[in-house]
């Protein structure tokens, strides 16, 4: 259960909140001003490693009849896909490398090695998830419309199956992501414009076609009699990537300590309050340098949410400053070993599959700053959930 002791941060005055905002702006400025050759060299090196790894994996799999080659090729290909999806693709699409003014590494035209079209991802993730992070009813990443991740989401008997849905989501994560921007919630309520839905589906279909053709037809066919072994290797590599990406993402917002917010929080939210919400709503995890690289530096989820478009290789140094700031203002900074963080996520998924009265009752995981503002809003006074779409998708309407 996403739980937090609300008293830990209600002590902040408005002045202190604004001061935190100014300090964070300053951290941002320092990184922006010091971006340079070393950062470019970093991303070019990672891209080079990733492409070589992918090529080496594909070539090794031509010997997939030999079991050690199958294993080696699969691991190389899976690692390449992980690197491409998170450290390179996800971060580039956030605009982390746009400052280089390099058209080949730019958020406007990067397409990643997974089933979701980049255009839909940039909308559902960069905009909806990063702008409305952890606000119930606005951020579709809270359980992805499949899982109940907070007590503020009403229990339904369907939720009893959560442990199974969770396992399926982990295994087929890229397919869940592919459908994410369709907004299953809106489709269920019949609020989705069918023309837009058709256009988005068509784009997904095209992307899926190319991806599947490559991994499941062309490469297996090229290896002739051993096609089945190449096919299982490619499928395993995709599976490896799915489970790892799922793990990294779920450890970013659902471990204990990461807070959810009610939509009152959004009203008149200042930039400083937005920063605060990002810090309180995200959770880091600890790990080796390699772990951080393979998770696209998203073990620094708090820093990523504060500064989604700063180069990922700088998050480690930003984290030192943010941690210090949290200590000085007595704000919780959620972090822990990856394994422990995931166990907490798993516990929440299990617990919330049951009705509230059957489980121990923790304080509601919502931030108090919204509640402090007085009475609860009536339904008609509430801001509407975000239903607007990216440019390309909505131009079908």
């Amino acid at each position, binding site marked *: 259960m996403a739980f937090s002791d609300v008293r830990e941060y209600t002590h902040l005055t408005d002045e202190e909140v604004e001061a935190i905002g100014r300090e964070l702006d300053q951290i941002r400025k320092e990184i922006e001003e010091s971006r340079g050759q070393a950062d470019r060299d970093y991303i070019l090196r990672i891209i080079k490693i990733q*492409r070589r790894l992918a090529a080496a994996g594909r070539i090794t799999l031509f010997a997939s009849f030999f079991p050690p080659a199958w294993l080696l090729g699969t691991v190389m290909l899976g690692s390449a896909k992980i690197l491409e999806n998170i450290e390179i693709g996800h971060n580039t699409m956030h605009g982390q490398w*746009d400052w280089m003014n390099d058209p080949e590494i730019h958020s*406007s*035209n*990067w397409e990643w090695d997974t089933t979701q079209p980049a255009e839909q991802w940039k*909308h559902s993730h960069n905009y909806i998830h990063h702008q409305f992070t952890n606000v119930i009813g606005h951020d579709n990443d809270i359980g992805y419309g499949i899982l109940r991740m907070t007590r503020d989401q009403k229990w339904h008997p369907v939720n009893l199956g959560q442990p199974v849905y969770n396992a399926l989501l982990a295994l087929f994560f890229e397919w869940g992501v592919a459908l994410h921007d369709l907004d299953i919630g809106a489709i269920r309520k019949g609020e989705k414009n069918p023309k837009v839905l058709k256009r988005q589906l068509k784009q997904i279909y095209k992307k899926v076609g*190319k991806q599947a053709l490559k991994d499941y037809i062309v490469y297996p066919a090229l290896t002739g009699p051993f096609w089945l072994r190449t096919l299982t290797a490619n499928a395993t590599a995709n599976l490896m990537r799915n489970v790892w990406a799922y793990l990294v993402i779920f450890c970013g917002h659902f471990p204990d300590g990461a807070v959810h917010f009610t939509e009152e929080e959004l009203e008149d939210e200042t930039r400083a309050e937005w920063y605060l919400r990002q810090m309180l709503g995200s959770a880091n995890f600890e790990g080796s340098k390699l772990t951080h690289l393979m998770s696209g530096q998203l073990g620094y989820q708090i820093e990523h949410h504060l500064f989604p*478009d700063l180069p990922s290789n700088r998050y480690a140094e930003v984290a030192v400053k943010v941690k210090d700031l949290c200590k000085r203002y007595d704000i919780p900074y959620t972090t822990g070993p990856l394994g422990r963080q995931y166990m907490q996520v798993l516990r929440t998924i299990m617990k919330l599959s049951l009705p509230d009265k059957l489980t121990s009752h923790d304080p509601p995981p919502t931030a108090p700053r919204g509640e402090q503002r007085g009475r609860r809003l009536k339904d008609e006074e509430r801001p509407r959930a975000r239903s607007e779409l*990216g440019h390309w998708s909505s*131009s079908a309407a």
Partner: protein
Amino acid sequence: MAEPLIEKSTLLKRVRTAGKALTTPLSPDDYLKLLNPLWTARELRGRIEEVIPETDRASTIVIRPGWGWRFDHQPGQYIGIGVEVDGKFHWRSYSLSSEPTRSGGTVSITVKAMPEGFLSDHLVNGVKPGTIVRLAAPQGNFILPDPPPAKMLFLVGGSGVTPVMSMLRTMARRQSMPDVVMAYSALHEDDMMFRAELRSLSEEQDAFTLYERFTEADGILTPDQLDDVCPDWKERETWACGPAPMLDATIEHYEEHDLRDHLHVERFTLNLDADGETGGTVTFGVDGPSFEVDGATTLLEAGEANGINMLFGCRMGICHTCDVPLAEGKVRDLRSGEEHDNPQQYIQTCICVPVGDCTLEL
């Protein structure tokens, strides 16, 4: 990633499409360029082969273009060159000084280091052979007609000589030099680019007359002095390239004599608002509609207010959904105060305001 844009051969296009089945969502070129940085047609690239000093402040840079380049530019045209400095690509345009069909597969530009021009200084003094640069295809209407007119006059000042150099070399090689007069103004003798080549050309070619003017000693060449320098200037088709005041005076002079149609002009510098005042005329899309925008209105707000269909997301500089390339002009990032004036650079319209006139690519 974006489809390869610059491949013109149908066969190669098919090969690339077939190869892409193996490399999707990347292009085969993304892997081939790991073997040789010029083996990519994702966009035009080149390798700097040689930096030849012309004067203390000017160098000729010889570039070997990679895949996709066509050596068929017209004499007088310029290219865009993107050079990486401290991790960031900066773009500028320079006239090609080489002639079109020169063998050896290279092109050259001649760059003069400007006092405030940080990129020109880097190109003249800092860039190493072997450096990979990005290129934009030749363009421009300041060109040599084929065949050239019977009587020509070149009025050039400083580094304005470079496009004319390409024209002269072409005519000399084709042995089709008509009656050409060139009036070349430089600060002093050492500042004169291509000095040796121009002087020997005027000795070898009877049809080519070179007039040298050293402005530090003799003052600038004013249009009314044309009668002395080139008495029959009114009968000549004229190409002028150089500093803005020189060009303005020349245009005025030709207009007074009703000869504007016979004057071809190339400007190197854009009129940027130097005092940093924000606000100006913003053009949405090259050849698109233009609107007056004040300095407190972001480009995104201005576009929306005028019915332009613009991409947007967070509207606070986070998500980069609204990014568009700047075609020309200058904008200021309200968040950082930083100003951007690199053509082709992507800017965040939700937090940028115009500084003087600018054009966005939509």
